[in-house]
């Protein structure tokens, strides 16, 4: 059974597993800078996985997506976030609404749900990497979870970006990627989003002396 899986599919599965692993590592990471590095690593793994799919299927536009992923998610966005952290002088540890082991268990439950939901869908697809659809869905949900449980602004943005990673993986695994126009649009969106959010960070900090977004829940002026 497993012996029939070609090497390229094995590699894709391996990279997908690494992406899932990194999603969990990000969920468990307490500090901001390692969190950003993990995100960069996830981008790099995503790029490698896309490259393997591109090479196996001969889809030329996937090379473009891989290059875009590398430049944007593995280099540019982490660099912007690093700069932001330096300028904002974020020192404190990331704190979550629930503790890390509980988060992990919630994460496992999410992965189980994602795998079960994705199984019938991936059987419809004939793509070589269809098995990774479940992992893609799982990383989207884990990123969602991260956005929900984190209280500081920067980890929330990283969660948002990681969610985009998951979506990209889903697109690659189910249908060999989105059309180039859509991909470029999303890439630009994400980039602009991060830059705007970066400006927001400064505003939030100036207003509240903290990046804790729970302050935003108070609507009244003091």
């Amino acid at each position: 059974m497993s012996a029939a899986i070609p090497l390229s599919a094995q590699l894709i599965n391996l990279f997908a597993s690494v992406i899932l692993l990194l999603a969990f590592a990000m969920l468990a990471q307490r500090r901001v800078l390692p969190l950003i590095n993990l995100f960069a690593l996830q981008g790099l793994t995503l790029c490698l996985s896309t490259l393997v799919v591109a090479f196996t299927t001969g889809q030329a536009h996937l090379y473009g997506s891989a290059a875009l992923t590398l430049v944007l998610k593995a280099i540019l966005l982490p660099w912007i976030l690093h700069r932001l952290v330096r300028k904002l002088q974020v020192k404190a540890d990331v704190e979550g609404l629930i503790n890390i082991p509980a988060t992990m268990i919630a994460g496992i439950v999410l992965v189980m749900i994602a795998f079960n939901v994705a199984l019938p869908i991936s059987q419809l697809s004939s793509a070589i990497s269809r098995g990774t659809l479940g992992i893609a869905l799982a990383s989207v949900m884990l990123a969602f979870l991260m956005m929900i449980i984190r209280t500081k602004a920067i980890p929330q943005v990283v969660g948002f970006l990681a969610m985009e990673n998951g979506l990209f993986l889903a697109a690659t695994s189910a249908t060999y990627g989105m059309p180039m126009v859509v991909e470029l649009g999303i890439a630009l969106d994400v980039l602009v989003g991060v830059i705007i959010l970066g400006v927001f960070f400064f505003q939030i900090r100036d207003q509240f002396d903290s990046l804790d977004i729970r302050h935003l829940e108070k609507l009244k002026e003091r």
Partner: protein
Amino acid sequence: MSFSGLLWQLFAIVLALALAPLLTGWVNQCRAWMQNRSAPPLLQPYYMLHKLFLKDVVLAHGASHLFRFAPFVVFGCMVLACAIIPTLSTDLPLAPAADTIALVGVFGLARIFISLAAMDIGTSFGSLGGRREMLVGFLAEPALLMVIFTTAMISQSTSVATIVETLAHRDFIIYPSMAFAGIAFTFVSFAENARVPVDNPATHLELTMIHEAMILEYSGRHLALIEWAAGLKLYAYSCLGLALFFPWGIAEGDSMFGLLLAIPVLVAKLAIGGALLAGIESVNAKVRIFRAPEFLGTAFLFAVLGLLVRLLLETRV
């Protein structure tokens, strides 16, 4: 079961008994080198055992029979575990005696006895150590079982010998699930063998220790047996890890040549594994006892992820 098979089984047990202190000594030596200390001699654990066996046993006043029997039970469990795990060959008479789940049970039995013995005297450190050991054990055991289930799903069997045979004979395939299981197994074996992120084997600070706290009251040959059993446990876990994740070189059948070849391969693998263990121990700091659940929870997470990834990615027809 043939006569030569029986002889080889005996030889495997004797080899385990002889190599276990050597492995401990090797790990200690590597660790000392990596930390820029002058290393104790490689044979130091043997000298230690020799010294302890010559000394008299001093028993506390309140010691019950349990306290005296526990070292023998623990030692017996570890010898049995070393006999079941295929160290040299997958075709030894004792291999079908217990599958992997029973093997985890054998480790559990040893843990229960050593913890009970630690609580038996009634000193505060003993019961503290016993309770901590049970905490670590009850978190490590499910993770270990999950690791074993992952390998059992690949080979469709829970017998260690069958698992090893199946894994060794497959064409080389990248199993992401095995990678997850391997990481989880490493975590678990660090915790189970009282190694650095969870416990420090060289500590003399009573408040932080787990394993050492339990055996504070032991002396003489009892202590020797427990120390030897600790060495055997490390050996058993190393051999289990090597058998599950690097099964190449373990003989099948009882051909003379294969078995003779298996010995140097095993020693080489143990030497590399021991050096790696020392390396990992050197770059890590001991975590607080309250962080241990997090450490083992991560191990459990990896093991479950391995299982799930196995179900999702690798079971296509």
